[in-house]
């Protein structure tokens, strides 16, 4: 039963954590950015000049994906997959890394989608009152707070793991 041993291999678990952070946060961002894009396309057919403004709103839910990548990179850096000094992890350490990736993975997934919704609603603000763009941005940004907190938790956990 080799594969069970592989499954509990510390490095595998750490990689799985890094992968989860990228996958889930990335899915969330993709969905969120997509939502805003759909709404924005409708507006731009009416008024192509507003492309720049809508693009700004569309970029907002994209950050969670970046946070996921960032966490993954910090993990990979720590265990030496990037940058040399490959470290053999124990199963326990592997689980630590897996746990550390969870905050940004899940919060990233859901906050990006909800941020996308808030930003898509903000497209309505641009349509009727383009001068109030910043207020639309603020509403979407309020959601992002939790992604930032999750990122912080993940990074603190990863940097805190003793090798």
């Amino acid at each position, binding site marked *: 039963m080799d594969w069970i041993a592989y499954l509990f291999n510390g490095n595998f678990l750490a990689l799985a954590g890094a992968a989860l952070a990228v996958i889930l946060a990335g899915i969330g961002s993709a969905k969120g950015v997509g939502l805003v894009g759909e709404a924005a396309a409708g507006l731009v057919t009416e008024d192509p000049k507003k492309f720049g403004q809508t693009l*700004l709103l569309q*970029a*907002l839910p*994209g*950050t969670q994906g*970046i*946070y996921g*990548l*960032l966490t993954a*990179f*910090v993990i990979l850096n720590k265990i030496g997959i*990037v*940058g040399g000094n490959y470290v053999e992890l124990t199963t326990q350490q592997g689980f630590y890394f897996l746990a550390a990736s969870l905050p940004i993975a899940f919060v990233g997934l859901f906050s990006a989608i909800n941020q996308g919704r808030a930003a898509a609603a903000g497209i309505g603000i641009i349509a009727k009152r383009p001068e109030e763009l*910043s*207020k639309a*941005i*603020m509403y979407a*940004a*309020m959601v*992002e*707070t939790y992604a*930032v*907190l999750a*990122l*912080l938790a993940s*990074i*603190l956990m990863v*940097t805190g793991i003793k090798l």
Partner: protein
Amino acid sequence: MAIVKMSKLSLIGLESDKEKILDILMNMGVVEISESLEKLSSEEWKDLVVQDGDSEKVAILDDKINKVKWAIEYLSKFSSKKKGLFSEKRCIDKNEYNMTIQNIDKLSSIVESIHKYNDQLAYLKSEKNKYANLILSLEPWQQLTIPLNVTSTLTTTILIGIVPHTSTSDRLKEDLISEAPESYFELISSDGQQNYILVIYHNSCEENILKVLKRYNFSKVVFKELEGTVKSNIDRAQKNITRIDKECEKVEKEVSEFAKYKDDLEILHDHLLIERDRVKVLDNLLKTSRVFYLEGWFPSELGEKLKTKINSQVECFLEITEPDKDEDFPILLKNKKLVQPFEAITEMYSLPSTKDVDPTFLMAPFYCFFFGMMVSDAAYGIVMALITGIILLKYKLQGTMGKMIKLLFFCGISTVAWGAMFGGWFGDILPLISGGKLNIPPIWFNPLDNPMKLLIWSMVFGGVHLFTGMGIKAYMLIKEEKIFDAIFDIGSWYILLIGVALLLVGGTPAQVGKYMAIVGAAMLVLTQGRDSKNIIKRLLSGVLSLYNITGYLSDVLSYSRLLALGLGTGVIASVINTLGTLFGLNPLGIIILIIVFIIGHTFNLAINALGAYVHTSRLQYVEFFGKFYEGGGKRFEPFKKNTKYITLNDKEAV
């Protein structure tokens, strides 16, 4: 350095002087003429006065403005001048302006003819479409040699039409011949979906023919009003199209001749705009048959100047009063030059109400500080400061746009400072390409090495920010002579929060902190219910108020984003650098490095500057403003020459 004090102007003048007075006010551009409609409902006034105004003239002028605006946009198609990134208003001196306005009739007729030409072009285009469609529908019938207007002879009928492609024409032909031998069938052409066929039959077998054709879903095609063969018709249509094209070209050329008047039209547009505003403001005036009444706001410091200026030119009754204590007046912010750009952030939230303090000058340093900390890469800061600096030098930007660019310039400088503190210069590119030889060490420390340290500092900075906000609230309370409120509501929280913070430090400070926290908490419990008379209720709401400490906790924790976003920039930058150097430092590798470097860092800078802007604003709006700021003020909009394309070089303006 705050909200500008406003005074109220009431003016009664002769109807015959109205134009002159409005002219003076418009040229000075410092008075906001406010609605005096409430006077209409007051007992004293309502029988004496009526509302002034000429909505019809406003509508006419609006219509004219729209037409001119449309013509300008239309002409800009022909203009070879490239539009800059930021549009600036042209500066026109008074003489040029007057000269242009003298030709107002000529310019109006130009606008009219541009509209006429456009109608003509639209008509020509629809004509062209008609012919193009005709050609399209005739094309399948090109092989048909019978003239289209011939549909029968003495004893036969000629039919053309289409059948769906599914039925093969051979079968149709066989069926036709077997059921009606006195007929002729020809397949003219065929495309993917339809067969175009010609059938000629003797009138005696019409019934049979139609039966067969119906079986094959035949539908008849008739070209009304066309004579001659298909070919000749197509030729004719094509000739018409070339003729129309030529005509279009001619018209367009004639229109493009007008392009040189675009600048003049812009002046005309703004002239009409000023005219419109002058008529529109009448809505806010009251009048009797001989005199008119006007009410407005202006910055108090200009009172004497305004008075002498009006009195020296016309005779009228003029009164200047200070606003009542609770009266809302329009808000104009005035700050020192360095702080001014940050007004954009305040305005974005909401202008201060008349009771608020203008928060801009207190917010500005924090804004810069936090923004720099979130981007925290010295090289990014240099890029930001350079780009915005060049824009500022090249364009004279006004309004919110100019403020934002200046703000980014200051934030860029702050970013350089923070980047140097944390040792980020395009991430870790220098040690990476020099193999560790070149390295600019951080002045303070590298946050990636010790994130906990920066986390604590972030919260300390946040605490200072929050305390400043609470301090402003206390200041406002003291100004309203509610000194006890200031001590109880703000002072006790100060004591409690500082005490709690000292407790966390540990050691001797913790001993002091313990007592401070207890004193602060006791003050809160004893004072927070002071509005109610029931003693039990008082204590209860006092105890409940302690629960607010969770609010302060979450406020302080919110500043952890300073760390998170700062780390984010650094880590993404090093990801980009790592990717770029993957191929080593050979020639190919260096090319790849340069490409990855430029694209990657541009992206990182853009996304992080946006993030920093958004999150810094949030810290100001939610955490800082939440402590003291009300907002909801109305912007001061003086009656002046508002223009779109030009600025008048006019010495009379104040």
